[in-house]
């Protein structure tokens, strides 16, 4: 047992139990699904049809409502993956490694969306799909990091070793996150600086800002849902020999 044990609350260790995670994850899933569906549908309809056009960019600015949430999530998910990996290493928690693994595909998806929608947005705004600007390049590096973590995970057959190795790669890779964030300040980039923050007062009018807020929150809910789903699937795959699972209603109830 680790010497850090006494500092952590009980739920932290319960979360490390596959059975407990499977149960609670299953209970939380429908709520995240419902919240994601409502928030994303509401945000998209508002952003597409009701928000006023930008005085400079016209209607192309509506791409912001999918581009910005994807970009925010691509980075948050990477940090989540690295933290889950660190928890797995420090507290020898298998479920934490599973959570980290679940993050890879979702994070890569959001990164790809951010890059693709950014490229499409670039055409009417900058006149080009791609420039080797610091923000764009560092985000492309993020996609490669996700691919690297995925490849490393698949190359190691023993799951604990794979979990540890990918956690270290993810932790080292987080150096790229502040680079992405501050790239627009450190370098002279074509990409505009941030116009949205969850913690600061918005600079745009409410009817433009609120749909973005809905989209960001909805994306976080969808991320939570997908992590729960994928982690519970990994629990199914690894716990198939345990009594609690073979006698579980999900298995027995058919």
């Amino acid at each position, binding site marked *: 047992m680790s010497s850090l044990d006494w500092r952590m609350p009980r739920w932290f260790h319960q979360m490390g139990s596959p059975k407990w995670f499977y149960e609670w994850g299953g209970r939380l899933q429908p709520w995240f699904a419902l919240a994601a569906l409502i928030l994303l549908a509401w945000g998209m309809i508002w952003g597409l049809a009701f928000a006023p*056009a930008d005085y400079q960019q016209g209607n192309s600015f509506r791409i912001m409502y999918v581009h910005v949430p994807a970009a925010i999530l691509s980075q948050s998910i990477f940090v989540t993956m690295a933290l889950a990996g660190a928890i797995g290493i420090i507290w020898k928690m298998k479920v934490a490694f599973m959570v980290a693994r679940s993050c890879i595909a979702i994070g890569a*998806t959001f990164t790809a969306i951010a890059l693709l929608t950014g490229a*499409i947005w670039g055409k009417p705004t900058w006149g080009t799909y791609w420039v080797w600007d610091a923000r764009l390049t560092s985000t492309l590096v993020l996609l490669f990091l996700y691919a690297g973590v995925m490849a490393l995970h698949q190359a190691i057959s023993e799951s604990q070793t794979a979990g540890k190795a990918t956690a270290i790669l993810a932790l080292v890779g987080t150096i790229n996150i502040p680079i992405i964030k501050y790239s627009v300040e450190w370098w002279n980039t074509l990409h505009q600086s941030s116009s949205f923050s969850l913690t600061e007062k918005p600079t745009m009018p409410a009817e433009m800002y609120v749909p973005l807020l809905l989209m960001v929150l909805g994306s976080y809910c969808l991320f939570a849902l997908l992590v729960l789903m*994928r982690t519970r*699937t990994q629990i199914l795959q690894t716990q198939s020999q345990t009594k609690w699972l073979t006698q579980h209603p999900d298995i027995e109830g058919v």
Partner: protein
Amino acid sequence: MFFNSLEDLWLMSGHGAFVWSCYGLFVGLLALNVWHSLSQRAQALKQVRAIARRVK
């Protein structure tokens, strides 16, 4: 609505192709992720059920 008609909403004064393709990518790629997660779960459930039957 900000637009005067559904046609205006679709065309977005010339930006329609850019905007709609981005929303399509967002919804499409994320839906693919949800579908993949669901199919993996179904597959894993099938395997565990097979093991559970053998144990019994």
